């Protein structure tokens, strides 16, 4: 069980791939052009996840640590 929960709102994902560049073990861009959370995401280190979430052009990634949402800004 991981302490980290990751949500990605595909409704506003623009498919830039920033998340996959910065955190390749956690995010990937699918053939549809939208990003998806990969199975390896919960074990990716938290700093890397935060960097990816902060760099997302539309800020569509939200992170929870032990039930609490991480404030990105």
């Amino acid at each position, binding site marked *: 069980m991981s302490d980290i929960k990751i949500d990605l*709102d595909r*409704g*506003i994902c*623009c498919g*830039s*791939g920033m998340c996959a*560049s910065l955190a390749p073990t956690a995010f990937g861009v699918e053939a549809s052009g939208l990003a998806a959370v990969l199975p390896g995401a919960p074990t990716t280190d938290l700093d890397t996840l935060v960097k990816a979430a902060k*760099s997302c*052009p539309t800020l569509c990634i939200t992170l929870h640590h032990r039930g609490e949402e991480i404030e990105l*800004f």
Partner: protein
Amino acid sequence: MKTVVVVGGSVAALRAVETLRRDGYDDRLVLVSEEAHEPYDRPPLSKHILTGELPATAPLYRPAGSLLDAQVEVRLGARALALDLQRRRILLPDGELAYDGLIIATGARPRPLGTQPCPEGVHTLRTIDDAVTIRRSLEAGPKVVVVGAGFIGAEVASSARARGLDVTLVEAAVSPLVRAVGGAMGEALGRLHIVNGVKLRCGSGVDRFLGARRVEGVRLTDGSVIPADLVVVGVGVVPNTEWLLSSGLTIENGLRADPSLHVHGGTVFAAGDVVSWYNGSLARTVRGEQWTTAAEQGSHAARALLRGPQAAGHFRSSMYFWSDQYGAKIQFAGDTVADTVDVIDGDPAEHRFLAVYRRSGRGVGVLALNQPKTFSRLLRALDAGTPMEGVDDLLQVRAPAAGSLPA
């Protein structure tokens, strides 16, 4: 159609090609790009590539070779030189290429400052090669002068500061980002530079660069001299339309297309930073310089080519853009051509605010600094077709506490 050609090698071109394949076009598809790399993402060039958080290689959108897997003929390092609409041919350095359908996505390049002489160590930033050159230079610990406090200049300044360097940002206008967000908000966002230790010099332009072979300093129009080992110039972009001049197409602030991005005869369409078109969402003719607009235009142009401009409909866009500076997130959607701007939430002094631009009292644009939640709500609503005019209800705006500022 037997052959569709997409000219350009960036996000608009990639989206066009991918949409053509996804929507069932399965004949010959050629991508002609002047660059040596397959399509890659530009936004990280001024951000993570300069800070060193990403490797000094092109951040490709798709794994290398995947366009070939989609049966796309990729011609890299090939510059289109001219277009013949009658014969439906594109002139390339090694001969002609015939098309039945064409999507023009040649984007834009940095506007040159035109200051002479231009010694070594003065750069602009548009390509991965530019970014790698600037990054190498930053690694040597130079004194940095950035000319132009638009978004790209601002991000370069931010990345250089992240490396602890001495950075001066020179802006000819009275405040940063005037063209992008207007004077009042430009000043508010410009404070980010100051609190992060960048010397901000507004109100004077560059008179000349000093240094015989390598740059040693920048002399401003007010006569002052700023020492510099590295200068990055970011004073806007110009659309890449020279190759179209002899075609007879209308060139006016870029290549002019109709509201559905149609350019000529049901066969030629345009997308990305190269195109100006009537954007119904803003009710005026504009040219975008934003990633999201370019990407969405690429898809739209592809659909309009396959189904016809009528069926594809008008391309309307809220022209969303974002910028990352000093760990902060700036987001904007809509129009900045406005009479007033109200800060409706947060406080610019605390580097967290939301502001609404109004024309004749109606909301036309929204600017946010570090307001991810509210802005995501706005983006979802705009995506769902809510008009920008409804922005007040959407954001539950009450009368602004501080009163309106002139935009």
